[in-house]
């Protein structure tokens, strides 16, 4: 029967040829080097213009993990609920209510973006820093500028992380094999990295913003953030000096009309990110401005309402109110109203990250601690007078310090977690908040790490008091 095989050897040969052709042929499975929607890392860093697309990604406020990652107003909401600023009228929203009532668990869904998104944002920062280091395709000045501004960005991410969670893993490279297994570090070493980054940035940056608007940090952005960080670290002199440079730069001035503070082009802005989402409206406006006839989703707490002195213009212009018949008569409800514009695709407001108003208060606080009450009161009164209030009556160092903290409460409410951070760094969170609501426990100054993260990286330690 072998004969049959051999008789047909030509056919067999053809057959084998065909099989050979179709199989081992590399050409048959060749696909373009990259899909039309994507480019490889090497292409991303091939020239300045392409690098700028990655840089634009850093400041875009669109997708989770991009921009400043708190693009769902989550930082404002969570810290506002944890402190004494706002409360949710939706008793069924466990994710919100756990913050308000100090019953946070590691499964809380709002915790997840607070932890994960900054790291998603830090990765491209590290990737660009790696991609431009030693890159011969770009001019030195461009590299220096980018290095400086991106380090400001990275410092800001870590500043929020360390204030929300305590010591966190510090990732400065794109090597995922190493970075995914890093344990937490101490608060001091996170701050060490922040101050190093800001100091590097200070050396690299100039007074000019590298592009129009105040989106990409300049020297004063770095200094403004450094002033804030040094204030938190209680390095009063350093905070005082850095804030002073920014204030005296002459580039910024307080907006006299409070309604103009948060709009695009505000002269008070030191760092402002465009609201470039689908609707180009700010998430804060979406969350806080109520539907007509409905009780707002978030109300200003009585504590914050009472913190405003009579005739405080900020209460008039930054706090909204709506009067609703709740079934037992008309009732007026108050809600945060710094961001107001809900015009689809045409909103005029930008997210304000750092502004001159805060810098005056930073310098005032630092000056008070340094015993320089003249500067402290002068700075404080600038803010007060803009709000339509008379000069502060504080006299002693303690009184001035208390007055500044109080002014921060009414000036910086529902902005980037300021109130929550202030209560924690001044050590008053426990006393202030347990007087305000029940449930406070010492553990509550730090948020828990998301449980899934502890499970994936078993070197991460949960904050004390959380399971």
């Amino acid at each position: 029967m072998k004969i049959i095989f051999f008789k047909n050897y030509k056919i067999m040969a053809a057959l084998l040829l065909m099989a050979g052709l179709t199989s081992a042929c590399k050409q048959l499975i060749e696909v373009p080097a990259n899909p039309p929607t994507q480019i490889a890392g090497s292409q991303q860093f091939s020239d300045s213009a392409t690098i700028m697309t990655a840089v634009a990604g850093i400041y875009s406020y669109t997708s989770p993990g991009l921009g400043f990652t708190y693009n769902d107003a989550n930082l404002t909401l969570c810290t506002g609920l944890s402190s004494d600023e706002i409360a949710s009228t939706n008793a069924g929203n466990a994710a919100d209510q756990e913050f308000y009532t100090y019953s946070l668990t590691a499964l809380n869904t709002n915790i997840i973006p607070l932890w994960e998104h900054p790291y998603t944002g830090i990765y491209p920062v590290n990737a660009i820093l790696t991609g431009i280091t030693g890159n011969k395709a770009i001019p030195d000045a461009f590299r220096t500028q980018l290095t400086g501004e991106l380090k400001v960005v990275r410092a800001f991410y870590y500043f929020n992380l360390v204030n929300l969670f305590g010591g966190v893993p510090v990732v400065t490279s794109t090597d995922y094999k190493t970075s995914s297994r890093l344990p937490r570090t101490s608060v001091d070493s996170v701050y060490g990295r922040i101050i190093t980054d800001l100091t590097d940035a200070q050396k690299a940056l100039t007074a000019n913003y590298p592009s129009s608007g105040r989106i990409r940090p300049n020297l004063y952005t770095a200094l403004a953030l450094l002033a804030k960080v040094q204030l938190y670290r209680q390095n009063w002199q350093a905070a005082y000096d850095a804030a002073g440079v920014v204030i005296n730069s002459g580039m910024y001035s307080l907006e006299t009309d409070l309604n103009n503070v948060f709009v695009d082009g505000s002269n008070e802005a030191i760092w402002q990110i465009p609201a470039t989402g689908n609707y180009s409206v700010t998430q804060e406006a979406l969350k806080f401005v109520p539907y007509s006839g409905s009780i707002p989703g978030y109300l200003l707490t009585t504590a914050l309402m009472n913190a405003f002195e009579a005739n405080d213009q900020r209460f008039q212009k930054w706090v909204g109110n709506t009067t609703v018949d709740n079934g037992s008569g008309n009732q007026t409800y108050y809600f945060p109203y710094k961001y107001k514009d809900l015009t689809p695709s045409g909103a005029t407001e930008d997210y304000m990250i750092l502004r001159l108003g805060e810098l005056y208060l930073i310098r005032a606080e630092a000056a008070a601690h340094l015993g320089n009450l003249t500067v402290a009161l002068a700075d404080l009164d600038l803010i007060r007078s803009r709000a339509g209030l008379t000069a502060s009556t504080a006299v002693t160092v303690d009184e001035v310090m208390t007055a500044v903290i109080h002014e921060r409460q009414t000036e910086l409410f529902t902005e980037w977690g300021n109130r929550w951070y202030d209560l924690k760094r001044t050590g008053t969170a426990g006393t202030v908040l347990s007087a305000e609501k029940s449930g406070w426990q010492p553990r509550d100054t730090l948020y828990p790490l998301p449980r899934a993260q502890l499970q994936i990286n078993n070197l991460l330690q949960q904050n004390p008091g959380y399971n």
Partner: protein
Amino acid sequence: MRIQGFTKTLLVMKLTGIILIATMLQVSASGTAQTVTYAAQATPLTKVFAAIEQQTGYVFFYNSRDLQGITPVTVELKATPLRDALQNVLAGQPLAFDIQGNTIVITRIEKEMSQEKDTIRAFRGHVHDSLGHPLAGASVTIKGTRKGTNTNARGEFAFKNLPDDAVLIISYTGYSNKEIRPDPNFIMYIVLQRSEEVLDATVIQAYGTTSRRFNVGSIATVDAETIAKQPVTNVLLALQGQAPGLAINATSGVPGSRVQLQIRGQNTLLSNPGFAQFRPYDQPLFIIDGVPFAPQNKNISQLSSLASSSFSGDINQAGGISPFNNINPGDIESISILKDADATSIYGTQGSNGVILITTKKGKPGKTNFNLAVNTGFNTSTRTIKLMNTPQYLQMRKDAFAADGVTPSNDPFDFFAYAPDLLVFDQNKYTDWQKVIFGKTSNNTDVHASLSGGTLNNTFLISTGYTRSDFNYPGNFADQRFTLHAAIHHTSADNHLTVDFGTDYGYEQNNSSAFGGARNVLLPPNTPDLRDPAGNLLWNYKGADLSGYQFYGYLKQSAILQNYNLNNTLRITYKILPGLSIGANLGYSRNTTSEHGTNPAAAQNPSYPYVTADFNTNAFQTINVEPQIDYVTNIGKGVLSALVGGTYKKNTNNSNTTTGTGYANDNFLGSINGASSISSYDNLDIYKYSAGFGRLKYVYDQKYIVSLTGRRDGSSYFGPGHQFGNFGSVGLGWIFSEEKAFQSAIRFISFAKLSGNYGTTGSDGIASYKYQDFWQPVNNAAPVQGIHPNSPVNLYNPDYSWALKKSLNLALDLGFFHDRLLVNATFYRGRESSQLAGYPLAAQAGFPGVLENINSTVQNQGWEFSLTSNNIKTKSITWTTNFNISINRNKLISFPNLESSSYNSFYVVGKPTSVVLGYKFKGLNPATGLFEYYTGDGHVTTNPRSGIATAGGDYVPIADREVQFMGGFGNTLTYKHFSLYAFFQFSKQTAPNWLSTVYSSYIPVLRARNLPVAAANYWKQPGDQTPLQKLTSSYFSDTYTSAGNFGSSSGAFSDDTYMRLKTLSISYTLPDAMLRKLHIQDGRIYVNAQNLLTFTNYKVADPETFNDFAAFPLQRTVAFGLSFNF
């Protein structure tokens, strides 16, 4: 001749080629005797045939070439029986006839053979199938002896010496045995009939056909008849319980929603676990008529709709719309489920999760036949949950406040006491939301018509179908389908060239509401009116914001999906030499979806509506070219069949999404033109695959079987240097019932086969370009200072390659009592290593994961048993039974350094991959009313620590989600004109129970949401022993803490065993007398029902879509139908 053949070969190779097609001819036997009265003088044979056709209704089949040179005939027939008449007509002609049902096949007796004369004892024969194709390798044995021979490639055989009284038994796979008494004076032309025996019925396998008798791989088949009895619109649902080893899960009861399939367990590990990530569910490879189905079993929808519900415990049930909606079940001839290495290793890197081969219907030669089937039916929910009424609900809410000593308040400043449902809403209002949302009885209509027929060499089939399934949901939502199927077959006059062309076109429109509405069954029963009498939506009630309650808003948000499916296949085979054919299989499959979703102002709170419209398209395309060479020859007493081929495949998936916002008027929402702002993005994916493969099968003496398959594969999914791989399998079979010793010893066993195979398959089931560090423009992002932002999308890991699965399959097949009872027992073991998965990374790395081969081995091992029995077979009564059960055991058998990997809290070596780690539940403490859990060291607490023991936590393995066993059994009873089919499907596993839903998603009372009546059984006072613990209205109570831990505890899992009367089909065949009056060939009236009854210990929700009792329920369908053949 040989040279000529070779030249032809090359020619055909260029064009493409061939495949040996075993055309199936199944003709029903007609019982009535026929006579012929006819006289003719020197009349051409064709005229005589025509006359006989007219008189008898029988149809002649012949190649006109065969009639060339035939002398005209002169006959005179008077009421002569057909058979005698034909003998008369063909007397002296070199033609033979054979009657197949109502078909008369005329074939020419080979000239050289008919002229040859042999010695008295010598005998020659010629074995053909009913279409005149020679059957090579048919076995011819002398009855009572072991002597015999096989036919050659021309179907010829010869004996030199035969005993005078010899009886020859001719047998061939898939055909009934035939006994003949050789007459040395004639060269006998023996036609073998297609067997209707289960054992010899054609089984579609990879690149060809086989039979249960000679197959050594594990293939389960579901035929058209079984599918036809089930009133389902998605053919995948018709497979449920029908094939051992095949698990089917409906993701939802929404018409058009996806169905998930899995063959022999889960092989791969979890990818990128995050908070909302569920364990993956491996899907097999889907091939329709030889062409990989372009969308496979992916969700074709990008819009949120009612079908996009997505969870069931922690197994990924990613919903969406199924591409299989557009395949009409009425157009399917059979579905083969390939499970082991022998069956699947020929698919190389794609076969490791098994393969589903779908074969569509082809035309059959014979009288042109028109079939019309119409049915209409209604749908209702399988299991509706019973929810609390207003007094029960209000009592529960009040008790919750009371438990914490809180007085409900209507002041929103009183944050925790604020309860508008208790103080603002009407306390006497009652709406049964279950009834409002799922209470409707919806309609189903299905019409299917087909026209088929043709001559021996040219057959055709055209069929068309229309199906409409209304949603069991308020509003005018429906899934509609229109399909067109056609198949043509041509064989050249010399029988050398065969061409098969098949085409399927399907259009589907799924008109659905936006996602989110279904869960509103849990709205408080005293929810205020959400619409005013004019039908306008109301957004607040005495200040209470109703945005979270506005069910009717979802109804105004549309999600319209239109899917266009085209499958084309062309198979060309050219027979170069007897036994050797060359051919090609060409396929094109394209599935395009275009979607339109709107969020009109009318659906939104008028304060500041964001009016949007989405326009999405999603197109999957496969081009498939497979040249092939088949060779069949006899070697000794055996038959060798060889197959060599190659594959080139290119898949593309292009999708794009365009969103328009800022419409001034809702009426513009149908177009993008009215949008004041447009954002758009697209996604392109390409996959190329090529392979060379071969299969060698040798069946010796109809007893011993050896099967070898091999494949070399290349896949563009992998980085340079990792693209190619080799796969193969060895299969052995021994039909020991053919052994004389066995036959004489055990008479009641008519068939016995032991078979086994071992081999490898791979898996490249990933997306393209995952090995590079890519950056891409951010979807939908606005430019930042004129620059479109880019962001990184992938981490760099060029080293991964396919996952490798090694499988072993051992099977014992037994036939008892002349094969009336067939039993199969199979043991299998599959071990997949280097799983290809997105290795989870901690968020700090910047990405949730990176694609890697994971150094671990997952084993799926199990048993499958099936039984087919013809219990009764008499003239008026037949009773057949089918039964199958499969038992799969999944186990992670190795995972070095699991403890320090990202999987440390998800897997345990030695446990199934569906293991759940959590707290061991102690139960309710009747004194405190709180749930209690065990800590790792055996203490009892309400608040255990999360994490595994080595991380200082209290996690232990608390459950696994493996299906312990599953299967189905069906009985078909026919009595005269009546036929009854009842099919039960059953399954047992551990599943999240309804309490897990209560405590994870709808924590009692903290939300103003209704719950099932069963939830009213909560703890009220010391001593109560209840399924629910103490209620609470506050977040800082121990009650809240212990409630929060419940979802991670063993208390959240329960046994989920059910048996479902999946299908009940009753039909009545119209009697002949009536049919004749109506001029109908055959007619049937039937009632088919799906999901009619359920027996289960699973509480509250449906045992199939467990866990979320508020999800869109599965549907019970009852359809009444008529089917006619004209």
